[in-house]
């Protein structure tokens, strides 16, 4: 049993930490509610979910798998070319459904009443990784996603069995085509190496025996699990020291008797939620709880979330946000009412976490593996893009009517692109008017150069000219600061900056960093009197831009 947290230490900061880790840190208001409870009550409120509804419906846009293919192949009159065209259309339809599925899942993670259930579903997706790159029917991918939700904090053996019998896993690791004549070892190998025991706990012979035992685990035309007796190898096998006419269920039974299973799974849970490598005592204490409960996940999580170690300085504010966590907290910080989930899903892909398409069967390594020069720059540039995408969507709904030059149109879907085009034209018109008036004052050669840069320059160059000449700023740069920023308390610039850090970051800032942000807010000195609502919107936007360009903003 891990040493529990001292209830006297419970604070708004630790409540926020709990919401970050046992959820996605959103909505922010929920952290306030957790802080008002005891630690036990707070943790139990997050663990209090079952299979029931969470306020978000399952997707209703998934095509039914199989049926069309069977219909077509049943028609003798359909020619080869036509058949191929129909199948290509079908594949395309499925690919589009998977794209929608990504956005749908982000939406569910964002809006669910049970954030821990979604966080666990994401954990299991990385643990039992399959990819829609290979598993074409979107329905198969969603069905496995639903299995992760159904068994999120429940019986791990029931989860592993359901995964092993899912169409997504059976096709991803090719077991659906594994026969006694040609046993396929993929599933058997990964089941031991990645899903239950870890490397070094078994031999190649055990893989071969398990592969034979799982022959026959397959799917029917609709993706439902079936045991194909004619494909199964009924012969005698020896697996981890046990000999008999073993089948797939026997292999799972034997795996769950292995002492290596509990510490392997518990260490991975700790790494995911705490973000650090567990010491042996922590791992073994959780493993003991796991075994004693008959491999139930919930008691392990409860002990972990209530432990002193989970709320220690080594853990709080030291985990690198996953791309999913990053975009969800970002739209919450930006207070975007209707987040552009499809754009966010594309951003997650660019940042290395493509939902339903993990890079391989090992899932995502997480933490520092999320970060390289490339992804970090993209993270720093993302707030502007997301704000822009949200504004383009707002514009479609008639919310705003201008926008500007920092567009990255590649990030947008077609209607948003059209809206963006209209906004850009409106802004250019506005800019053109100001340019005509302002450029008259310049010498001819400078005027020509300024015109050229405004027309052809990179965004940074255009902005340099725009600011140098005092021309109208692109609208999205005038006011990207979230509304709440104007209401932050504090009588001096430094006090406002402290309040910003407290609200938007998991760790405090040092005096030098605060001074930079205070200057951005428009204060001559950090101790200059300045209330947030008095700072001009452009200055608040600049300060917020710098805040989200902090290394600290990557941490939760």
């Amino acid at each position, binding site marked *: 049993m891990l040493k529990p947290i001292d209830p006297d230490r419970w604070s708004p900061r630790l409540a926020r930490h709990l919401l970050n880790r046992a959820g996605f840190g959103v909505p922010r208001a929920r952290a306030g509610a957790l802080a008002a409870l005891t630690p036990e009550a707070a943790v139990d409120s997050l663990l209090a979910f079952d299979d029931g509804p969470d306020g978000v419906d399952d997707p209703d846009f998934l095509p039914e798998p199989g049926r069309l293919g069977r219909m077509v192949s049943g028609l003798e009159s359909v*020619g*080869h*070319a036509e058949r*191929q*065209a129909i199948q*290509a259309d079908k594949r395309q339809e499925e690919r589009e459904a998977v794209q929608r599925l990504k956005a749908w899942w982000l939406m569910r993670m964002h809006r669910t009443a049970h954030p821990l259930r979604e966080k666990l579903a994401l954990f299991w997706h990385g643990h039992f990784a399959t*990819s829609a790159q*290979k598993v074409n029917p979107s329905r198969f991918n969603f069905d496995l996603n639903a299995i992760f939700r159904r068994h999120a904090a429940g019986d791990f053996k029931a989860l592993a069995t359901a995964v092993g019998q899912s169409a997504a896993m059976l096709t991803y690791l090719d077991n659906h085509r594994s026969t006694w004549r040609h046993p396929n*070892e993929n599933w058997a190998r*990964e089941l031991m190496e990645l899903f239950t025991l870890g490397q070094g706990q078994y031999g190649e012979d055990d893989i071969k025996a398990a592969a034979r035992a799982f022959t026959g685990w397959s799917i029917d035309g609709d993706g439902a699990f079936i045991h194909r007796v004619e494909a199964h190898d009924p012969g005698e096998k020896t697996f981890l020291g046990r000999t008999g006419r073993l089948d797939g269920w026997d292999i799972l039974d034997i795996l769950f008797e292995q002492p290596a299973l509990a510490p392997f799974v518990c260490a991975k849970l700790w790494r995911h939620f705490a973000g650090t490598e567990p010491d042996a005592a922590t791992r073994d204490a959780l493993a003991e709880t796991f075994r004693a409960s008959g491999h139930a996940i919930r008691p392990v999580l409860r002990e972990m979330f209530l432990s002193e170690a989970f709320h220690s300085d080594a853990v709080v504010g030291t*985990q690198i946000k996953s791309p999913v966590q990053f975009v969800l907290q970002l739209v919450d910080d930006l207070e975007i009412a209707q987040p552009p989930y499809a754009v966010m899903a594309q951003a997650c892909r*660019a940042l290395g976490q493509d939902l339903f398409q993990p*890079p*391989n069967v*090992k899932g995502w390594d997480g*933490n*520092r593996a999320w*970060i*390289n*020069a*490339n992804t*970090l*720059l993209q993270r*720093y*540039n993302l707030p*502007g893009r997301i704000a822009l995408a949200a504004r383009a969507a707002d514009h479609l709904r008639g919310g705003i009517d201008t926008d500007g030059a*920092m567009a990255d149109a*590649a990030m947008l879907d077609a209607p948003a692109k059209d809206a963006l085009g209209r906004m850009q034209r409106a802004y250019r018109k506005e800019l053109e008017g100001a340019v005509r008036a302002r450029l008259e004052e310049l010498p001819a050669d400078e005027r020509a150069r300024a015109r050229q*840069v405004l027309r*052809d*320059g*990179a*965004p*940074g*160059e255009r*902005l340099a000219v725009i*600011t140098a000449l005092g021309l109208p*700023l*692109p609208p999205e*740069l005038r006011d990207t600061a979230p509304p709440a920023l104007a209401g932050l308390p504090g009588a001096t610039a430094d006090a406002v900056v402290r309040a910003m850090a407290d609200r938007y970051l998991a*760790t405090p800032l040092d005096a*030098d*960093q605060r001074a*930079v*942000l205070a*200057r*951005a807010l*428009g204060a001559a000195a950090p101790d200059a009197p300045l209330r947030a609502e008095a700072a001009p919107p*452009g*200055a608040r*936007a*600049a*300060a917020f*831009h*710098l805040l989200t*360009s*902090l*290394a600290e903003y*990557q*941490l939760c």
Partner: protein
Amino acid sequence: MSLTRRHFLQGAAVFSALGFAPRFLTQAAAAATPIHGFGDDRVLVVVQLGGGNDGLNTVVPHGDDAYHRARPRLALRGAQVLRLDDYHGLNAKLEPLRALHDDGRLAIVQGVGYPNPDRSHFRAMEIWQTASGSDRFLGDGWIGRYFDNTCAGSARPQAGLALGNERPQAFDCACGLGIATDDPARFGWQPGAGADGEAAFAAINGGAASPGSTLDFLRHTTRNAIQSSAEVQRAADRGGVGGLAADRGARGNQLDMVAGLIRGGLDTRVYYVSVGGFDTHAGQAGRHDTLLSGVGAALAKFQRQLERDGTAHRVLTLVFSEFGRRVAENASDGTDHGTAAPMFLVGRGVRPGLHGAHPPLTDLDRGDLKHTVDFRRVYASVLRGWLGADPVPVVGAGFDPLPLIA
């Protein structure tokens, strides 16, 4: 960045008015400065043909009756083939490659594949990019493993540079090297127009953090990224890549950009470009011709540009696809996913001509060619012969280099 470019534009205008080449061009030709973190100044350019290029209609076994029997409608004959010898030829759309071949700048490796080939695009591409066997899932890429095993700590993040929005799996590594950008001139943090400029961005991330901490790691990576993006933008400026030209819609192809970045002196060891569309299940003839015309012209133009820039001696280009296509044409005038296919190596450093044996067309595995050369041997040849690296930690033991590099 804006100042640099403005000065460059002014400077270039002056030079061209006087009829001189800008000085950096002559410098690039003369200097042999090693790429940061590597022992020499050599560059590898990987060109990925996505979708599965039809190898048999690329390097054509025109002298084989079995080829013509298997493809009554799609087989190339007569003027559609540039004969290399009585058996082999190139698709006539690859005329620019034949010129490279005749100049001793082109090596063709035939029948490249691997055991138990996978016919899924995704999985096959993963196998090629991670240099794994078809029964293994590797977490890192082959170029990434090369970085992890050979380059010194002074290597820049742009040691690997992919043109496009996505960093290829081939770059995945422990050392974090490798960037992706579709516009090198704009690779970097986007400054704001107010007090949120580049100086402020550097300042707020400039402080010291507890060594080894995650924050320290993030700040270190940030500073590295700032420096790297400045270097990429500078090289793009010097090489005339992207930026103003891109805005005017005159971006040119990815290989033009690569030539420009090499000319601009970027510390990049491996460039990665890709072109898709090779999945020719139906109506292949016209489409495949168009694709090959594009590839052939781009490769030849790239090589000419390198020669003009004086950088050709430094550059080797490697062309691959995730699989070839079925020997027999299908009923839709196309071809389905297959196995082994030829690879191209282009550059002054190649040992020109045909390498390896063409897979026999009469000894097939369920309608597909049996590979005669494992692709990891080609990687090993490039690693050992061109990059001077031990191939074993990258592709594993048992994949001996071929004599592809002079």
